């Protein structure tokens, strides 16, 4: 393993790369205690947790109702019809998958870039990814109309002698999304193993201890194990980064395979990926703002983390804005009157309000993030992130609905409006997300504990090495004062 970055930090002053990533007087013990106790001491979960779980639970039940109705009556209960066959199911699918992408980017890409600040946010961002993908997966499966036949999407030897159509991006999507879901879960669980060991060792209740003991797979922190563990993490990060890019690129191919005006620009794959990250960072901030307040995690998720998330969000937002502009440009450049008319109708047609509202949400309001004060203001960050989430939903709405209602022949034009079942199902997946997320917060450490210990080591390394000579025999909870 590469140790060039870390070996120098043990004696010199605090590495500037890790400065400001942790606040307060922190030792290995305080970090382990604070983060593990959120899981082990159930009284840490106060009224906000119950309120959020309650909201999630109620909405989750709406999902159950919506899906039951759907199974009984079929997809006709949705607003989909000719010419809009995709409707909210595909809009929400793309929206949820996109939200997941920021979690993978934080856990994988920032690990490759050796960005230490990811350590405070990667665990719950990965959880966010998994739950978002679970929400996303529901839509295409039920949109098939016969979800009990969904396994037909996979290649298996069957009595019909048929195989899936390998030339269709819709099938690529099956492989991309299922690979993405399974690799995300794997990456998350591998990351949890040493933390489960910490919970096992700190638990007092026998049942809790045994449960985390089983989950930790007998982890004992041996140097030999850590070496392979870090190699495997790095490999997983290296594999996940192109994976996340491929998933949303393939989703953009789903659009481009349909010969529909407005779904063809070559900018689509990177623009879809940037949009995914944009929505994803917004969701990370939406989750981080209340979590750090309710669980008093301000020492670990510092203003610096929020600032950097906001900067990444702004950056991906600018790429998205560039995508909007180049879409307009390419439709006029194409010289194809149907493409040009589609773009005019997108802006000034029956859905023009949605288009300009999306420009306001994704293009205009987020420019506030240029102001440092806004990036350090939790309320503003939360507000802007919610606005971006709405904007990203509208973006998919505009892409799907305008193109489908305004294709080549005016005789096949139509108008789309959702039904109550579209809305209930959307609310239901939001409920599923909230419910699963707050259950996760209760049973698993939401911040990576061992990486935070490593951060303590890097931040206070010089304190420990100089204090160690005369403190042998005393407990390790040294005050974090410089010993010079």
């Amino acid at each position, binding site marked *: *393993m590469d*140790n060039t970055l*870390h*070996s120098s930090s*043990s004696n010199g002053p605090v590495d500037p790369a890790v400065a400001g990533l942790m606040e307060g007087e922190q030792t*290995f*013990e305080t970090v*382990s205690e604070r983060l593990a106790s959120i899981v082990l001491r159930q009284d840490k979960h106060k009224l906000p947790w119950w309120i959020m779980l309650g909201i999630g639970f109620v909405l989750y039940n709406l999902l159950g109702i919506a899906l039951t109705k759907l199974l009984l009556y079929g997809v006709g209960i949705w607003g989909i019809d000719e010419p809009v066959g995709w409707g909210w199911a595909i809009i929400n699918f793309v929206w949820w998958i996109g939200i997941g992408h920021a979690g993978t980017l934080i856990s994988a890409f920032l690990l490759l870039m050796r960005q230490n600040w990811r350590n405070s946010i990667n665990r719950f961002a990965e959880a966010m990814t998994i739950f978002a993908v679970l929400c996303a997966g529901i839509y295409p499966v039920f949109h098939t109309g016969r979800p009990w036949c969904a396994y037909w999407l996979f290649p298996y030897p069957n009595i019909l*002698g048929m*195989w899936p*159509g*390998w*030339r269709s*991006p819709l*099938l*690529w999507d099956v*492989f*991309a999304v299922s*690979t993405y879901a399974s*690799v995300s879960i*794997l990456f998350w*669980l*591998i990351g949890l193993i*040493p933390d489960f*060991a910490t919970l*096992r*060792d*700190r638990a007092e209740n026998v049942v809790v201890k045994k449960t985390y003991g089983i989950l930790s*797979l*007998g*982890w*004992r*922190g*041996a*140097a*030999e194990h*850590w*070496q392979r*563990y*870090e*190699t*495997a993490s790095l*490999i*997983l990060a290296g*594999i*996940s980064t192109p*994976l996340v890019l*491929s998933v949303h690129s393939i989703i953009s*191919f789903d659009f481009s395979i349909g010969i529909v005006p407005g779904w063809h620009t070559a900018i689509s794959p990177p623009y879809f990926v940037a949009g995914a990250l944009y929505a994803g960072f917004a969701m990370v901030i939406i989750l981080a703002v209340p979590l750090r307040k309710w669980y008093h995690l301000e020492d670990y998720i510092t203003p610096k983390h929020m600032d950097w998330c906001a900067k990444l969000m702004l950056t991906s937002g600018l790429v998205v804005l560039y995508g909007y502009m180049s879409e307009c440009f390419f439709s006029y450049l194409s010289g194809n009157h149907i493409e040009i008319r589609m773009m005019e109708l997108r802006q000034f047609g029956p859905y023009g309000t949605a288009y300009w509202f999306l420009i306001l949400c994704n293009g205009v309001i987020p420019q506030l993030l240029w102001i440092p004060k806004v990036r350090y203001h939790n309320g503003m960050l939360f507000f802007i992130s919610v606005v971006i989430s709405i904007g990203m939903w509208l973006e998919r709405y505009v892409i799907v609905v305008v193109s489908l209602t305004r294709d080549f022949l005016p005789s096949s034009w139509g108008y789309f409006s959702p039904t109550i079942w579209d809305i209930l199902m959307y609310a239901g997946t939001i409920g599923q997300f909230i419910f699963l997320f707050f259950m996760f917060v209760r049973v698993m450490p939401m911040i990576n504990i*061992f*990486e935070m*210990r*490593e951060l303590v*080591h890097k931040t206070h*390394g010089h304190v*420990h*090495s100089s204090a*160690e000579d005369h403190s042998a*025999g005393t*407990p390790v909870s040294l005050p974090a004062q410089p010993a010079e």
Partner: protein
Amino acid sequence: MSRIYGLVAEFDTAEALLRGAEAAREAGYRRVEAYSPFPVHGMAEVLEHDDPRLPWVVFIMGVIGCATGFGLESWTAVINYPFNIGGKPTFSWPNFIPVAYELTILFSAWTAGLAMLVLNGLPRYHHSIFNTPRFERASSDLFFLCIEARDAKYDSEETAQFLENLGAQLVSEVEK
């Protein structure tokens, strides 16, 4: 003798553990293992844990995944069930790339995760090192260095003295 797993020294910093491991290697001990609450960088080099197998296993499985995807697509589309879709050639290989790519990732990622566990001998129900006093803090704030009894140079008194001289807070003989 056979009832003893080894001698375990307890340290309170990662630096002390690293120095202890270095000293033990220099003193000629070979069956040495360090236990820490987070990866201590440089430890793998000191203890010569340089197992090169994991990346290779992952690479090979990635190639197998790619071949599986591409082979399955080609065989089904060309040989097993050739089907004319839009006049495209049956062997339209550029269309086969995405699935082959995803299967490469699927195979190599799961191999990375599972091979890490298998090579580490995990999951494992119990290990003698857990008999060490205060070892439950090895996952929070204490660092342990173990010289195993099967080391050729192991001697319960000399080795214990050696570990104490390293500045260990506590040296204990651990049973199997």
